[in-house]
């Protein structure tokens, strides 16, 4: 007999990953506001979202990709390709909407290329995207060489560094709206349930009639498309595109997702956890920045956080099992 769904207990919330993450976030906010008087300034806080909104947008689709037991290391390189397309089509004098459509198309095509190779030849996504990571980045290099683009449509510059009603940055707003949409899809629709079952056991999912390859292909295409969206915001904000744009971002994006409690081998995780972890990392690097810790310090910290956030819980689990 299948047991009934256990009754809701308030205490259970305490053991949830999201709750632990939330406590971490609150403590970071408290520590930061005690250390630096500039931290709790509303304008500063709003502006600090510029540092992570673009990555956060990709983290949403990356969450789906990782839950479905895949990984995509090529996102940062897709940003480079899409930014080049953005700069090039602008330089040709195309209409703004055509420029944006072509940029989005280029990202989606790169993602679809990943998805096609992974599903058509049944090759692990990690090795395919290691290859396309250098292929796409290399395309950007061979196209731009040592020059750069600094002219973009006015709309793109506005999107990158503008505010809605003078308060909310467009990139941050986009991220918030998209995270609601993605939370709904993942947790309230059958598509979300299918993601979990693909991630838990792809073979079993295939036998129950889920088109695993189709979903995998769509996920990678979507991931490419979202990288292009991030590329538009990023190019608009930086107002200059070089082929090394967004270098190393794939690591930071995967850190956001994994720190948010998404299991790296698929099958579990939630959008809420990822959103909280995005704020944790964002507020952490903002706080460290206010303390004049150099960017490298933040890189080392992120790397350590990534390893420890997975290593510590599994270590505790192993020790507990030994004691039993």
């Amino acid at each position: 007999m299948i047991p009934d769904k256990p009754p809701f207990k308030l205490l259970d919330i305490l053991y949830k990953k999201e709750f632990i993450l939330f406590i971490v976030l609150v403590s970071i906010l408290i520590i930061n506001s005690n250390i630096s008087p500039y931290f709790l300034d509303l304008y500063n806080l709003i502006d600090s979202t510029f540092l992570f909104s673009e990555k956060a947008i990709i983290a949403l689709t990356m969450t789906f990709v990782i839950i479905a037991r895949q990984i995509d290391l090529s996102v940062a390189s897709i940003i480079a390709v899409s930014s080049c397309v953005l700069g090039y089509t602008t330089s040709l004098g195309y209409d703004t909407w055509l420029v944006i459509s072509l940029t989005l198309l280029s990202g989606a095509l790169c993602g679809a290329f990943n998805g096609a190779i992974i599903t058509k030849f049944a090759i692990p996504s990690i090795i395919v995207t290691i290859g396309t990571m250098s292929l796409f980045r290399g395309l950007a290099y061979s196209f731009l060489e040592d020059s750069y683009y600094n002219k973009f449509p006015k709309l793109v510059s506005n999107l990158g560094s503008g505010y809605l009603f003078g308060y909310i940055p467009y990139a941050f707003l986009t991220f918030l709206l998209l995270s609601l949409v993605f939370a709904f899809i993942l947790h309230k629709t059958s598509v979300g349930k299918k993601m979990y079952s693909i991630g838990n056991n792809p073979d079993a999912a295939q036998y129950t009639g889920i088109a695993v390859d189709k979903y995998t292909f769509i996920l990678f295409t979507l991931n490419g498309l979202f990288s292009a969206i991030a590329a538009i915001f990023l190019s608009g904000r930086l107002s200059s595109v070089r082929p090394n744009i967004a270098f190393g971002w794939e690591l930071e994006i995967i850190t956001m997702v994994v720190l948010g409690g998404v299991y790296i081998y698929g099958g579990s995780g939630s959008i809420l956890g990822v959103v909280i972890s995005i704020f944790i990392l964002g507020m952490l690097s903002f706080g460290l920045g206010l303390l004049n810790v150099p960017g490298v310090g933040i890189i080392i910290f992120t790397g350590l956080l990534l390893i420890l956030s997975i290593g510590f819980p599994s270590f505790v689990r192993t020790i507990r099992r030994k004691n039993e």
Partner: protein
Amino acid sequence: MKKILTNRDFILFAIILIGLIAVGFANPLFVTPKSISDVLTDTSILIILALSQMIVILIRAIDLSVASNLALSGMLISLLSTVHPELPVYYFIALSCVIGTCLGVLNGISIAILKVPFIVTTLGTLSIYRGLIYFVSDGKQVYSNEFSEDFLALIHYKFLSLSFLFWLAVAVFIVIYVLLNHTRFGRNLYSLGGNPDAAKYIGISENKYIILAYSISGFFAGLCGYLWVARYSVASTQIAIGFELTVISACVVGGISVMGGVGTVLGCVLGALLIGLIRNALPAVDISQFWQLAISGAIILMAIIINTKTEQRKEKTIMVEN
């Protein structure tokens, strides 16, 4: 005869030979003994790193931190040599290897004991080790005039008009060949990669081999840290950035399967030689250096696709015979 012709290593060797001849037609200067010996010297570090990466890939893992490890070990001994230029060069080499091994062991511990998946661990240490270089060096470079003569001399030593680097790569090849083909260690590595569950049942400790494989990878990364710094006589925060991808592509082109347990030492060396040949030949046939990254990416993809195709074909034939 047919067996030789369909042998993967032989095909790879033929491709290298044909490529060499083709480039020779386009630019005769490229195939002079001097130029070829330069290519071999230039590829030696790649060969050493590919051979040690192969050990990790055999057990279904990847070490993405090798380039950062190399750069960190190289920077640490360079900083030491500016303070203590009087120390003998062997001291620096040994120290570099020790540092590299320690960094490799850290990877191994994180994967085997903390159970952090290898991709997360090595992506994490890739940035941690790279970040530490900025910390120890303060973002500064160590230039050629700051090294002692002794430090740089060894690398320029020649034997039979081939460089020290090349002979070192040959030595590493022999050591790894014997290790993988004629010791219990090597056999166990192959069986762990081929079928981890079966290997565990016959008593092979997976954790031990993970830590050992990563220490070996770290050891050679450390060794190459010295070689890299001495060869280019500069240590900076940027050295060998992204080189881990070149190393992995050399392995993949050499027929080392990322699914574990498949691949030969000779194939690995040939893969590295082919990549080295392409890197050196592009300028010789007037292709801009900016194309290099895109071309290596395309080559990795093609190699993986070909590898998987042949593996899948083998599986099919086995099923038909049964």
